[in-house]
């Protein structure tokens, strides 16, 4: 498992998400209302839409195009048209730096 540095903790707003591209792939990194940091695959499983552009409310992210929704802690698809779960990756904050394990 390789830990990849992403950004500073405060670069992600609370109940917000950013897009993170690495190694030819795209991810979404979330900061929850609990200030927890989470990481999922970046594209909605319904169509290739960047989830980081979607609305984050509580522990849900909603696809900006078709309103499919996921629990970004577990990747679980919560609302159609999304029916396939999102892949999740370990994420943590060390000394104010967000990093994710993508290996």
């Amino acid at each position: 498992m390789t830990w990849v540095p992403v950004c500073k903790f405060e670069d992600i707003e609370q109940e917000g998400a950013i897009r993170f591209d690495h190694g030819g792939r795209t991810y979404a990194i979330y900061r929850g209302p609990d200030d927890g940091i989470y990481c999922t695959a970046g594209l909605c499983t319904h169509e290739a839409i960047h989830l980081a552009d979607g609305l984050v409310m509580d522990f849900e992210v909603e696809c900006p195009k078709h309103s499919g929704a996921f629990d970004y802690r577990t990747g679980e698809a919560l609302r159609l048209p999304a029916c396939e779960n999102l892949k999740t990756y370990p994420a943590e904050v060390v000394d104010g730096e967000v990093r994710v394990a993508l290996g």
Partner: protein
Amino acid sequence: MSGMVIIGAGEAGTRAAFALREAGFTGSVTLVGTEPHLPYERPPLSKPLDGLVRMKAICSAEALSAAGIDYLYGISATQIDAARHNLLLGDGRTLSYDRLLLATGARPRRLTCPGAERALDFRTFADADAIFSRVMTGGTVVIIGGGLIGMELAAVLRGKDIGVHVIEMAPKPLGRAVPPRFSARLQARHEEEGVHFHLGQGLAGIGPDSVVLADGTVVPGDIVVSAIGVVPDIGIAEAAGLSVGNGILTDAYLRTSDPHIFAAGDCAAVAQPGGGHIRFESWCNARSQAETAAHNMAGAAETFGAIPWFWSDQYDLGLQVTGLPQPGHRSILRPLAQGELEFYLEDGRLVAAAGLGAGNSLAKEIKLAEMLIAAGINPDPADLADPAVNLKALLKSARAA
């Protein structure tokens, strides 16, 4: 055995079939579609990748069969016998139903000028395939109609370096569904991209390699596409004696004038709390009406009250509109880093919002605006105008109040 029968296998009909199962209905569900494919999504038709039109299926054949949905495709429904609860199909079969859903959709409005038969429609997979298989770099396409479909097509064609002329009867494009601030911005962007507009112009006729305008101007083009809107498919409903107008009339429960027959999607004109009926043509509306209709067919009593929402992608710009902005509304502009948002107030109450920006960058704000509209608030206009005032915080305080 009778059960649920759905006419139309587009977004609304297909969604309703699955929603019946999700609602716990265990009897038979039959979905009847005229096109010879699995149900497919229409929005991707105007966004071909590498010149190839994509057919994105709404669901797989396995998903249909796993849900116990009997899908009859390539078959038209020809007649409803409402007294006997029977539906006659084009292949001679008769289906009986307990509840029938009309999700017949809409069909392109046809031009009436001389040579109208030369214009291609843009509605189905076959239409899209006919257009994109004929266009070639260096060629010119004349699009008749400056609505959302015509303008999305213009953007795609310019991206392939194909010449585009847009002919529109109204003095400006996108006048019907898009607030003036954003229709003007989109028009300007199309002009920068080299689209030629012919506005306030009717047609004299369509020839083999040109379109002649009412004022005599000749607009040359290899291909002519007609995108002048759609008309709801109400024929089968009208013949069955159901109430129709601009669409199949329903009450707030999406029931037609026959309580065993429901309607949803592009074909349905739904009674409004303030009187009159409104018909919406959007992907989102088709799905949400389908869900309400399916629940009510299965015995629930839900009224349809979803706030309208649609998006349109043109070049790298994304337009999103929620609610129904009207010329009489007070508009409040909120400038953002990635674009602009406008809120619309009616007697102080937030009723609609629209945004135009890079890609999907304004989707979050539009979704929050939709929730603010649903919360029924009378926001302080200064808060709406100030980008530093967080919309999510506004929503949370509105919900807490």
